[in-house]
């Protein structure tokens, strides 16, 4: 998708496939140290927590276990090895999908979390959809009618949106739609085989609760990006060709105005994952966020580590995807980043 009016010479076009691959390869390579650093932080969690890691890992108080037993456990768990060795083992195991066992249920951490990933992805993606569906039309209208009442209303709405605690909005929605009107379920997630209607009904409130804050952020961004674009020459050219205002705005201006929006959407995915921790707790959504909170409450460290590790990995991957998508949309960025 090359912006209209920027002619791409034939020889340059040939190079794009190769340079794109090169860019993706480089960007993926940078990912490795990041993931390693994240793993290190996650690995250190148990070691930094107050108390002996052995005690944390066996969930016992020192009175109930003898010193000899503790020493044996320490040996078995490899806690006597030097830290780099322990870390190497942690990474090696994690790469093989072994994140240990839950201290609480003795279930395999990786298996438990894997089941929780799809609900979280479903929730964050639908929240993202909700926010984009709100933000783009509102942002465009707001920019094309700058300083009108509608513009002020949109801006105030956006400020309220970023200021509203999601846990409060969630409650208000439950109060209205589940308890007073009784048209939406108050909690839980439905699977597709329970019927599309049921599936959707369960999805609506959590997605709106999670998406509203982001909608507010994106609205402001679409508005300012759009304001910048509609003053440019090529938009004036499009207008002077006699195209309808609708075509000018939606076909010519919006396409370019959305370029900066895409990166922000990628970065905001992290805030959605963080927000999901709260929203999943409110709506009893069976995702990673709720599980992370529950395991923090129980001090179930392998489970906490697994959830944090996978959430961060997901976040890093999404950012990689967005970065690649971004360079596909706007080749100038690639050239810039390759330098």
């Amino acid at each position, binding site marked *: 998708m090359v912006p209209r009016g920027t002619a791409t010479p034939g020889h340059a076009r040939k190079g794009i496939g190769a340079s794109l691959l090169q860019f993706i390869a480089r960007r993926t390579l940078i990912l490795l140290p*990041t993931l390693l*650093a*994240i793993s290190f*932080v*996650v690995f250190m*969690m148990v070691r*930094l*927590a*107050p108390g002996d890691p052995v005690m944390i890992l066996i969930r016992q108080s020192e009175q109930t276990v003898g010193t000899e037993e503790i020493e044996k456990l320490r040996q078995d768990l490899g806690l006597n090895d030097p830290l780099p060795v322990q870390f190497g083992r942690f990474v090696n195991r994690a790469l093989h999908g072994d994140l240990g066992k839950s201290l609480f249920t003795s279930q395999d951490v990786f298996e438990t979390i894997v089941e929780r990933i799809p609900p979280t992805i479903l929730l964050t993606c639908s929240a993202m959809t909700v926010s984009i569906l709100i933000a783009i039309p509102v942002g465009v209208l707001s920019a094309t009618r700058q300083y009108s009442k509608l513009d002020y209303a949109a801006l105030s709405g956006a*400020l*309220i949106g*970023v*200021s*509203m*605690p*999601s*846990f*409060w*909005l969630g*409650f*208000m929605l*439950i*109060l209205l739609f589940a*308890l007073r009107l009784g048209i939406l379920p108050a909690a839980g997630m439905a699977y597709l085989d329970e019927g599309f209607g049921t599936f959707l009904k369960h999805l609506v409130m959590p997605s709106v609760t999670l998406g509203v804050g982001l909608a507010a952020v994106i609205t402001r961004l679409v508005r300012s990006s759009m304001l910048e674009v509609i003053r440019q020459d090529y938009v004036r050219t499009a207008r002077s060709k006699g195209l309808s205002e609708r075509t000018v705005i939606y076909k010519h201006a919006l396409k370019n105005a959305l370029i900066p929006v895409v990166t922000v959407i990628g970065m905001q*995915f*992290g*805030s959605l*994952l*963080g*927000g999901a*921790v*709260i929203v999943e*707790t*409110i709506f009893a959504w069976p995702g990673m966020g709720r599980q*992370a*909170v529950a395991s*923090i*409450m129980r*001090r179930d*460290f392998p489970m*906490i580590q697994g959830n*944090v590790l996978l*959430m*961060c990995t997901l*976040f*890093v991957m999404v950012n990689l995807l967005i970065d690649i998508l971004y360079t596909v949309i706007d080749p100038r960025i690639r050239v810039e980043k390759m330098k």
Partner: protein
Amino acid sequence: METGFVVFWQRFKKNRMALLGLCFLSLEVAVAAFAPLLTPHDPTRLALEKTLLPPLTPGHPLGTDEFGMDVFARLIYGGRISLVVGLIVISLSLTIGLLMGSLAGYYGGWLDNVIMRLVDLLAAFPFFVLAISIMAVLGPGIYNVMIALGSVSWIGYARMVRGQFLGLKEKEFVESARAIGLSDWTIIRKYLLPNAMAPVIVQATLGMGGAILSASGLSFLGLGAQPPTPEWGAMLSAGQIYIRRAPHLSTYPGLAIMFTVLAFNFLGDGLRDSLDPRLK
């Protein structure tokens, strides 16, 4: 300096929303400070004979909670907690952020590299996920919330100050300061920081709102202030069981959080427009 302030105030007072935010926050600070004069009730005293009274009950303008504690008293005492938590989080992250950003931006080289890699590492975590991870290590409690949020949110300030320094340190007034033999520390403190502060102040004001929101979110999850502490997020969380019988228990704390955060956002936007119109 005085004319600078006059110019700033002339611009600032034209922004009605920012003034509204400032007034609201001043009022809130006053109410929080003089809370004992505004309500006869102790925010944490049990009164099991009058639980879950609805709002507008005589003596209890906003009703009572499941333990008979006065909701109005809890709300205004809760303001103390939220404002203080916000202030401490911002002070902590500003201190770390300004220090790290100044060192990275002024000295450059390996120091810059080390600091910026640390910043990149923290930025690779989703903010709230990192905050709950720190809470997992430290254990629940309102003091730990402040440490967790403070140690996560400094990276924005560090990046900002570093960026400003990179541009400023090449300027002539800094060169002349160096030429007359001033120490690095004096140059940073007296020449660079004051010129880099405008966007930082704006960001810190907006950050107050964000910190209050995150702190109440952590308390809502049960990781922050513990009952019976009158903290807004914790109050909301406790009220969720009674949402059918006593929706006021979760409604009012949420409104209190929202208006406070909104006021900081109004104020921050106003400060941005009047401190440095280029940032608009």
